[in-house]
């Protein structure tokens, strides 16, 4: 589904990603962990097409197509979804109206006609239930005045509504209390299928207790320095990142 090859990217002339290789297949959940500033969120931003990131080398193939050549909205329509670390507030635009527009755009891209009001409402109810999203929030202005937890849950609700093939969750667990974390994880688990894939960016192993990944990668200084299965996350929890940093440095010395 997603093939990232030797991806290099920079922001304002500063190199952030220094050669990422990653392959994600349908049905898989990949966790990306790593210390602060290692480039986790930058990877998410580059995949989603944020303007201020410049790709200097490498390529990203999504379902056989060159992802980096697409505008952000086209990537979204192709099926790339980013759950934002800090969801944006848009006053006066109702949550449901926004979703209706988004869904219609995505459907139009796939040559599907928009759902009629009744179908849309039905879908919305179904998905609200699936991810336990508060019906009261559905008609409010998009994220305006939502609590941190409500915003994150809204991301998962949108994810459920838009049904992307690849969902990137950028620190969705940050700022969530244990109950909200459980609800968010449950939502994600409900949405997991053989047809879609998840990239879960997180600091902590905690989230991975609820959403069990197939693979765990550790990002450090713009590179994936270690990959493994869920046991790697537990090892990190126990030992921290320092031993990996050490390993990475040694590796660098030996290669140069």
């Amino acid at each position, binding site marked *: 589904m997603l093939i990232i090859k030797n991806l290099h990217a920079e922001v304002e002339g500063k190199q952030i990603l220094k050669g990422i290789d990653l392959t994600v297949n349908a049905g898989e959940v990949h966790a990306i962990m790593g210390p602060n500033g290692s480039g986790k969120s930058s990877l998410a931003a580059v995949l*989603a*097409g*944020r*303007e201020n990131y410049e790709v200097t080398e490498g390529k990203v193939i999504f379902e056989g197509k060159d992802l980096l050549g697409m*505008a*952000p*909205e086209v*990537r*979204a*329509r192709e099926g790339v*979804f*980013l759950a*934002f670390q800090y*969801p*944006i507030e*848009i*006053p*006066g*635009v109702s949550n449901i109206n*926004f*979703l209706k*527009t*988004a*869904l219609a*755009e*995505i459907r139009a*891209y796939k040559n599907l006609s928009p759902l009629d009001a009744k179908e849309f409402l039905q879908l919305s109810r179904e998905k609200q239930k699936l991810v336990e999203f508060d019906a009261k929030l559905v008609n409010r*202005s*998009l994220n305006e005045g939502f609590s941190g937890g409500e915003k994150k849950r809204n991301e998962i609700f*949108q994810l459920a509504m*838009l049904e992307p093939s690849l969902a990137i969750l950028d620190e969705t667990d940050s700022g969530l209390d244990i109950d909200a974390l459980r609800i968010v994880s449950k939502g994600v688990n409900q949405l997991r299928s053989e047809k879609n894939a998840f990239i879960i960016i997180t600091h902590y192993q905690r989230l991975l207790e609820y959403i069990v990944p197939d693979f765990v990668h550790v990002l450090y200084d713009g590179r994936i320095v270690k990959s493994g299965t869920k046991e790697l996350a537990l090892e990190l929890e126990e030992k921290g990142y320092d031993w990996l940093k050490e390993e990475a440095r040694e590796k660098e010395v030996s290669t140069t």
Partner: protein
Amino acid sequence: MANDNEIIDNIANKEYEFGFVTDIEMDVAPAGLNEDTIRYISEKKREPEWLLEWRLKGLQAFGRQKLPDWQNFELPAIDFQKISYYAAPKSKKKYDSLDQVDPELLATFEKLGIPLSEQKALAGVAVDIVFDSVSVKTTYKEKLKELGIIFCSFGEAVQEHPELVKKYVGSVVPYSDNIFAALNAAAFSDGSFVYIPKGVRCPMELSTYFRINTENTGQFERTLIIADEGSYVSYLEGCTAPMRDENQLHAAVVELIALENAEIKYSTVQNWYPGDKEGKGGIYNFVTKRGICKGANAKISWTQVETGSAITWKYPSVILQGDHSTGEFYSVAVTRNKQIADTGTKMHHIGRNTRSRIISKGISAGQGQNSYRGLVQIGPKADEARNFTQCDSLLIGDRCGAHTFPYIESKNNTATVEHEATTSKIGEDQIFYLNQRGIDSEKAVALIINGYAREVLNQLPMEFAVEAQKLLSITLEGSVG
């Protein structure tokens, strides 16, 4: 539906049946403003002596008045002597087919979803519709007549209801009010007249769209609306389609009178030619609009969506004379390229327990300049008067400007006056967030803008609101890089 549109179309394009137009089609007064011109206009319109005298007083006032100097823009030089103050409407259409019309204008029509026949009419193409609209128009008129509602041109009202016109004209906006009001009093061409009798709720939105040929809106329009005790009327001015007009200066006057327990809702969508990208050739829209809540419990509500004109300069106001009366002002003003808007409202609280509410949303893009200017005045007898003002500015890009000039004068210490103001920018973050959900940047901006203006758009009658929403999106198309 197509039939409905054709009906509207046909009515809008019919030669003006009443008043002065048909019989003096070829007459044009020589340019210049003087007593002779005024006498000429008055005579052509077969006006009674008292109205001629009133016009002449307006002319004198005009001579005494100076152009204001307090506005937040440079007032372009206007040569009042170069304007022709009386011209019969053009009977000749400008084009023979749509192929000859500016493609940019046609593209806009397309986006607004204006039917083809209507497009032709608005662009000034000759339309031949073999369609009998007389019955439709009659039904419409009959229904209003049954209820005793008078809805006609100002000129017609002067002929048929002189007592009402005489009683109320100039009673809210006197001929000496300001230089443009004086100019209008002296030289007003025509306009609308509405009278709603006691206790009658007007069953439909009254719109000039039904009454006059849109091509001849007139340079110095005068509108007078009287809602008698316990009545209600909703009046719509303008339309969302772009209006091309040869006249550069528009100085209209609108007077609203709401008697005891009456309510007037006045909605405007203004989309006149804003000029080219350099601002050349656009309309100067200098309008005096004022209403009076004369009796207790009266209510006047102004709603405006201003997207056109090179310069918009107006302050729809309410005099809250009757106890417990209410004044409202809801406004969205958009400026882009080099457009200027200096607009707002005045709420004069005179009666006890009077209330006013002001919601102003300015949107500036390009090099547009947007000023909110408002006055809330609480008189010594206005016990327990209340005002709430919210005044928001939205900036798109970094070369535009938003300015706020709120004035509050209170002579009564039991009054409550609240003022809230915000200034924000459309953030790249907001656009990217919407992009990431599959929405392109144009649509994203449209969504954000409409969300921002929601509170005002909600005040418009349903169909108008939908059109206005589209208009806002189209107006700001291409504003975000």
